C-alpha cells in the first residue's frame, strides 16, 4: 500500500473537487457536467474503498494518525453515499441559485473528504483538522443562499461552531496536557498508566471535548443552533448537515471513547452522562418539534431527537465488557439508517418546496394528490423516523435500544420509546396533512430527475434496510468489532 492508496477514497473526492473547479475555469461550456464530475469522484472513492474491502487490507497509516479499519471503511461508504445523494439533490437548486456551481460542489466534496478523515483519524490533531475541513465548507454552504435567512444561518453556524471548536480545542489541550500525547492509543496507555490520578483534569478535558463534538452531534445542551441553521440554510445543505456532520461527530466520538479513553474512563463516569444527554435530547427535540409549522425547522428538532437516539448507543458503548460492540455497532448502524431516512425526507422536502415555494407544513395539504410519489416517499421516511417497521429506522432504534438494555439502561429505553410516541404525533401530523387534508391546488407535478434518483435511492434504502437489515447490521457489527480489537 503506498501513500496514495492509504488516502485513496478521500483523495478521489478531493481530486473531484479540484476537477470541478478546473472544469468551471477551463471549460465553462461544459459546466453542466460538474455534478457528474462530483459523482464520478464519489464513485471512484467508493470503488477504491471497495477495493480495500476486497483486498481485506486494513491497517493504520501515517504514523498511526489514520486507522484504515472496517470502522472507517463503513463510514466511508456512508459519507460517500450521503454526498452523492446531496449532489443529486442539489443540481436544480444550485443551477437556479446561480452562484458558482463548481465552488458549491467543490465545497461539498471537500467537506465530505473531511468526514472521511474524521472517521479514520486516530490523532487529536488529525481529528481537529479533519473536523475543520468538514466544518468550514459547511459554514460557507449554509450561507450560500442569497436570501437573508441563509446568510444569517451561515453566520450563526460559523460563530457558534467556532466557539464550539475553541471549547473542543481547550479540551484537547487539557487532554494533551494530561497525557502529553495526541495519539489516541498513547492517550489510552497514559490513562491506564496514570491510574486514578488527576481524574478531575481528565474529566474536565473529556467534558470539553464531548461538548465540542456535542455541538456537531446536535445533542442537548449544545443543540440550539440546529433548528435555525436547518431552517435558514439551503435545503440541500441542511440535508447534508443533518446526516453528515452528525454522523461524523458520532463516528469520531465513538472512536475516541474506544481507542482514546478506553472502557475504564467511559464506564465509570460517562455512561450515565451520555444516557442523560440522550434522554434529554430526545425529549427536548421531540417536544419542541410538536408545535413547529415549518417543515425544515421540524426536521431540525427531529434531528436533535434522533441524535438523542444515537446517543443511546453511545451510552451503551461506554459500558465495558463484551456488550459494548453492540452499542458501537448500534451507533454506526443508526447513523447509516438515519442517513437514508433523513436524506429521503429532506430530498422530498426539497422537491416539494421547489414546486410550492414554501416550507410551511400547512402548504403540504393535498400533496397526496399532487404528487403521490413524493408524498408516499416522505411519509415512508417519516414512518422510518418514528421507528415503525418495516423501515430502516425501526431496526436502528431497535438495535440501539437493544444494546442499551444490555448495558443495564432499561430506564433510558423506556424514555426512548415514550419519545417515539411523542415523535409519532408530529411525524404523523405531516403525513396527515399530505394525505388527509384537502387543498385548493390540484396541479400534479413530478420532481426533477436528480431529485427523483436520489429520492428513489434513499427510500429504497429505507425499505430494503427495513426488510433485510441483516447485511448492514452485520457490517456494522464487524466494523465495531475492529474498534474493539484495536483497543
Amino acid at each position, binding site marked *: 500500500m503506498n501513500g496514495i492508496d492509504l*488516502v485513496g477514497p478521500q483523495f478521489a473526492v*478531493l481530486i473531484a473537487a479540484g476537477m470541478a*473547479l478546473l472544469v468551471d475555469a477551463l471549460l*465553462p461550456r461544459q*459546466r453542466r457536467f460538474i455534478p457528474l464530475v462530483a459523482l464520478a469522484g464519489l464513485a471512484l472513492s467508493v470503488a477504491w474503498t471497495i477495493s480495500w474491502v476486497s483486498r481485506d487490507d486494513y491497517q493504520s497509516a*501515517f*504514523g498511526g*494518525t*489514520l486507522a484504515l479499519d472496517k470502522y472507517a471503511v463503513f463510514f466511508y461508504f456512508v459519507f460517500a453515499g450521503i454526498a452523492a445523494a446531496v449532489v443529486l439533490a442539489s443540481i436544480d437548486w444550485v443551477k437556479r441559485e*446561480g*452562484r*458558482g456551481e463548481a*465552488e458549491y460542489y*467543490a*465545497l461539498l466534496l*471537500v467537506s465530505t*473528504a*473531511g468526514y472521511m*478523515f474524521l472517521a479514520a483519524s486516530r*490523532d487529536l*490533531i*488529525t481529528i*481537529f*483538522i*479533519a473536523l*475543520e*475541513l468538514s466544518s*468550514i*465548507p459547511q459554514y*460557507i*454552504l449554509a*450561507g*450560500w443562499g442569497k436570501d437573508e435567512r441563509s*446568510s444569517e444561518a*451561515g453566520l450563526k453556524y460559523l460563530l457558534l461552531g467556532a466557539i464550539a471548536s475553541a471549547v473542543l480545542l481547550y479540551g484537547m489541550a*487539557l487532554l494533551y*496536557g*494530561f497525557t*502529553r500525547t495526541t495519539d489516541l492509543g498513547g492517550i489510552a496507555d497514559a490513562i491506564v498508566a496514570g491510574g486514578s*490520578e*488527576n481524574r*478531575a*483534569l481528565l474529566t*474536565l478535558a473529556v467534558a470539553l471535548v464531548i461538548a465540542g463534538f456535542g455541538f456537531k452531534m446536535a445533542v442537548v445542551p449544545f443543540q440550539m443552533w440546529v433548528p435555525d441553521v436547518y431552517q435558514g440554510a439551503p435545503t440541500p445543505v441542511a440535508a447534508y448537515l443533518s446526516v453528515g456532520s452528525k454522523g461524523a461527530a458520532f463516528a469520531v466520538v465513538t472512536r475516541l471513547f474506544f481507542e482514546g479513553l478506553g472502557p475504564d474512563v467511559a464506564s465509570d463516569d460517562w455512561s450515565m452522562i451520555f444516557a442523560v444527554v440522550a434522554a434529554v435530547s430526545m425529549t427536548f427535540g421531540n417536544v419542541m418539534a410538536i408545535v413547529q409549522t415549518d417543515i425544515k425547522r421540524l426536521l431540525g428538532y427531529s434531528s436533535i431527537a434522533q441524535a438523542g437516539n444515537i446517543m443511546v448507543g453511545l451510552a451503551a458503548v461506554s459500558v465495558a465488557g463484551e456488550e459494548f460492540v453492540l452499542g458501537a455497532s448500534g451507533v454506526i448502524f443508526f447513523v447509516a439508517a438515519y442517513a437514508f431516512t433523513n436524506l429521503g425526507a429532506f430530498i422530498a422536502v426539497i422537491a416539494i418546496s421547489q414546486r410550492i415555494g414554501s416550507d410551511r407544513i400547512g402548504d403540504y395539504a393535498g400533496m397526496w394528490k399532487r404528487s403521490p410519489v413524493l408524498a408516499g416517499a416522505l411519509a415512508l421516511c417519516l414512518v422510518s423516523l418514528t421507528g415503525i417497521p418495516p423501515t430502516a429506522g425501526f431496526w436502528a432504534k431497535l438495535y440501539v435500544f437493544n444494546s442499551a438494555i444490555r448495558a443495564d439502561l432499561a430506564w433510558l429505553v423506556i424514555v426512548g420509546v415514550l419519545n417515539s410516541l411523542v415523535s409519532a404525533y408530529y411525524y404523523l401530523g405531516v403525513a396527515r396533512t399530505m394525505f388527509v387534508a384537502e387543498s385548493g391546488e390540484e396541479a400534479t407535478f413530478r420532481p426533477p430527475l436528480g431529485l427523483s434518483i436520489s429520492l428513489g435511492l434513499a427510500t429504497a434504502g429505507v425499505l430494503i434496510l427495513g426488510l433485510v437489515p441483516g447485511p448492514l447490521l452485520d457490517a456494522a457489527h464487524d466494523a465495531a468489532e475492529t474498534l474493539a480489537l484495536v483497543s
Partner: protein
Amino acid sequence: MDGFGVTFAFWVLTGVTLVAALGVLLSRNLLHAVLFLILTFVGMAGYFVLLSADFLGMAQVLIYVGAIAVLVLFAVLLTPRAGRDNGETRMFLPALLLCGTLLAVILFVITDTNWAVSEEPATVSAAGLGEALLSRWVLPFELASVLLTVALVGSIMLVRSREEEAEDPR
C-alpha cells in the same frame, strides 16, 4: 525555567495581555477593540517566546497580527453602515457569570491536578517541528492547505457582489 528576567517578562506579559483582552471586552469602539486585540496577540507572541517556542511566536505575530487582525479591520471597514459600536448585548451579565463559573472550575482543576513536570524544559527546534509536520502530521498539514484554499474560495464566492455575479459570463 528560572531567572528574574523570565519571571519579570511573564508578569509584564500577563499584565499587558490580560489588560488588552479586557480592553477588547470593554471598549465601546470597534476599532479600539481591534487595536486591543492586536495587543493581545502580541502579548501572546511574547508568551510563546517565553515558552521556548520562538518559531511559533514569529508565526503568531505574522499570522494573527499580520493577517487576522488586518482581516478584521477590513471587515470593519467593509461594513460601514453597521456602525463602529462594540457594545454588549443584554446578555453581558449572564455571560460574565457563566464564564466566571467556568473559570472557577478550570482553575480548580488546574490547582487540583498533580502536574507531572519534567526537570528539563523541553525545547523543540523549528527544524524539529518542521520535520514532525512533514512526517507524522503530514496528512493534517496537507489538509490544512486544502482547508485554507477552500476557505478562500468559499469566502470569495460569498462576498462577490451581485454586480460581479451579473458580469460573470456564465
